[in-house]
């Protein structure tokens, strides 16, 4: 009897990771369930709050592991999560951008910390319940190392390739996404088939470490006093009013700014050094290009020339056609054929070629 391939299944107690684990067991892998203990805000009763690893979700994950008859362990990554994800989140806002911590979590926590744990346990793969796909490319005449591609999930509504765009060859080589080929309704059907004791939790877009989904409260509490009221100005420096703190406004926001003029005014950016919020007319809002830094290429090979791609400038944005030009120092210029009004610095711009994820970069701030 051949030895089974060992896979670590990241479990959260939710339907997706539970069904993923069940599929792996059915497929004949030797599965080990692992759940991470992340950082959470201290609570009054001495506990901590993190939606992803609350005592309830951990108990749920344990029950699933028990039912699947697989070992289950909890691993601690509170400190790393706090410094690389939570502090990163706070620092980003303080510096005037809108960070996406979920992208960073995949970069540092899931596909670095957890992957290393899996490999340490002599697993060949780390599997998650993400909706995405990995495809291994056929080796051209048996030369070199096998290449892997990251693909969108079959279910375009659930596709999570955006946050996984930080993965590279070293990670994809060891990744399994059992749910990539299924739609969410099919996954629910599988949960029923596997008789998994998972309650359908309301899908939350909130960050896991935000106890009440209120990022303003969180930033005020943990921002260390760096978030202060300041002037609202036009690009020419004319002061129009006061803002309550730069992080509390989004690019393109029109209502709730508290200033008025002959034309409608929109938040077009900020000048963090002066702690100023910059507003302008619709014509001044947006751009037909952006620059990214920390550019990352899934293939591991940096392109040398401009190329066409579809670009998502945030998780839920539609892919827009663009020309990408690599620049030195891990940067790239992205030029659209139309003006986009919601380009938000700090967010990840993810590049696609159809269903294939090419890479990403973090949108830079431009001084308005």
């Amino acid at each position, binding site marked *: 009897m051949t030895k089974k391939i060992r896979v670590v299944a990241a479990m959260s107690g939710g339907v997706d990771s539970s069904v993923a684990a069940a599929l792996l067991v059915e497929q004949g892998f030797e599965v*080990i369930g692992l*759940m*991470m*203990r992340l950082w959470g805000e201290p609570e009054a009763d001495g506990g901590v709050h993190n939606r992803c*690893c609350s*005592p309830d979700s*951990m108990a749920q994950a344990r029950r699933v592991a028990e039912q699947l008859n697989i*070992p289950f*362990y*909890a*691993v*601690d990554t*509170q400190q790393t999560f706090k410094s690389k994800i939570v502090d990163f989140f706070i620092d980003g806002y303080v510096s005037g951008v809108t960070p996406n911590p979920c992208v960073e979590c995949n970069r540092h926590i899931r596909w670095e*910390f957890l992957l*290393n*744990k899996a490999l*340490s*346990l*002599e697993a060949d793969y780390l599997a998650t319940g993400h909706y995405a796909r990995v495809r291994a490319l056929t080796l051209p005449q048996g030369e070199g190392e096998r290449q892997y591609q990251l693909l969108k999930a079959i279910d375009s509504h659930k596709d999570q390739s955006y946050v996984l765009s930080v993965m590279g060859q070293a990670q994809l080589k060891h990744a399994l996404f059992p749910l990539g080929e299924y739609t969410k309704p099919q996954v629910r059907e599988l949960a029923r088939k596997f008789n998994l004791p998972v309650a359908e939790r309301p899908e939350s877009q909130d960050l896991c470490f935000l106890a009440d989904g209120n990022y303003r409260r969180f930033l005020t509490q943990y921002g260390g006093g760096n978030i202060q009221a300041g002037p609202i100005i036009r690009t020419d420096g004319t002061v129009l009013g006061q803002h309550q703190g730069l992080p509390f406004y989004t690019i393109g926001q029109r209502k709730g700014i508290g200033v008025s003029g002959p034309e409608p005014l929109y938040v077009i950016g900020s000048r963090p050094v002066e702690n100023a919020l910059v507003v302008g007319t619709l014509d001044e809002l947006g751009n037909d290009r952006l620059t990214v830094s920390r550019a990352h290429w899934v293939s591991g090979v940096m392109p040398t020339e401009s190329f066409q791609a579809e670009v998502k400038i945030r998780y839920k944005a539609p892919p827009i056609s663009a020309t990408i030009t690599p620049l030195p120092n891990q940067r790239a210029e992205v030029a659209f054929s139309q003006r986009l009004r919601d380009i938000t610095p700090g967010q990840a711009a993810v590049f696609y070629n159809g269903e294939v994820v090419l890479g990403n970069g973090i949108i830079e701030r431009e001084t308005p």
Partner: protein
Amino acid sequence: MVTNSIYLDYAATTPLDPRVLEAMLPYLRDDFGNSASVHSFGRAAEKAVEGARRTVAEILNCAPDEIIFTSGGSEADNLAVRGGALAAREKRGARHTITTPIEHEAVLATAHQLQQHFGFELTEVPVEPTGLVSGAALEKALRPDTALVSVIYANNEIGTIQPLAELAEICRAHKVLLHTDAVQAGSQLELDVQTLGVDMLSLGAHKLYGPKGVGALYVRQGTPLLPTQTGGAHERGLRAGTANVAYIVGFAEALRLTAEERETHNQRFAQLREYLIAGILSNVPECRVTGHRLERLPNHASFVLRHVNGNDLLMHLDLAGIAASSGSACKTGDPKPSGVLLALGLEPEWALGSLRLTVGRGTTEEHVERVVRLLPKMVEKLRAENLVHA
């Protein structure tokens, strides 16, 4: 559960001895009476319970009515510490309790509760790096208003055996009660309460090849005790609740067998323990034994490994088919160095790498050989990974 795993966690719990199971079965299957009932069914149950009580009393060298059956060691600790302290306050205005930082949490949590909610002051007598409590340190802490002292007979994490007779003499001279948690000690050490000199002693069945869910508290005649579980007049009004007949019978039988076979087992345990300690110390760098090197439980080998995550080590051991435990591991992924290890003065980079291996009746030479063979490479690998991802 069919498994190939090697069990080296006898300090956590022990398998039920088949002879104990046999002794229990009649009271689970046939003789179901309530020992407090007047009729013949009740009398049969009472006979079993009182027979068990006499067995336990004989082993402890005390009178049968100095034994109170409980739901286990934790309840016995609660009754002794909270019941003893509150009664002492009522009787003579005592307001102070003394424990050590290496007590079992059932004692510590109760002492802290007395401090936080019942107005008692608490002194934790510091211990030496081996875990020993010095008589001099204890004497210094005693006050005229001290209700009781609680010192664990043999510590579960580090195996150190305390000089109870010496401590008891000091307490007696100051007219202060001495309680000891003998739950871990019960499986291997002498339990003669006259020799030990204690006023109260806790025992738990599942650490000595008996069932989980039953234990006892020895209470010296004349010790004032306020019941923690109130209700009917069971256990002379000190612990209400219908007697758990089958389990009480099981506990007594387990204790009887333990006392009878103690010396034989202890000798073998000590050999296996020494093999583990020697083998691990000589093959794993930056590794220390915790607890007293000589005055320790025969079956108990505990270590701290520098720059090793105890939680990770247990995972790796488990997957390699070895069941062990660690003072710094946490099932819910929130590992902290144990209070016991920190109290010994260990630095965090050592205290987080605690490993406890405890042998028992089912341990063979092959088992300990396997551990000694596997552990060095495992530790080396974990340390290398720690450095890379630091």
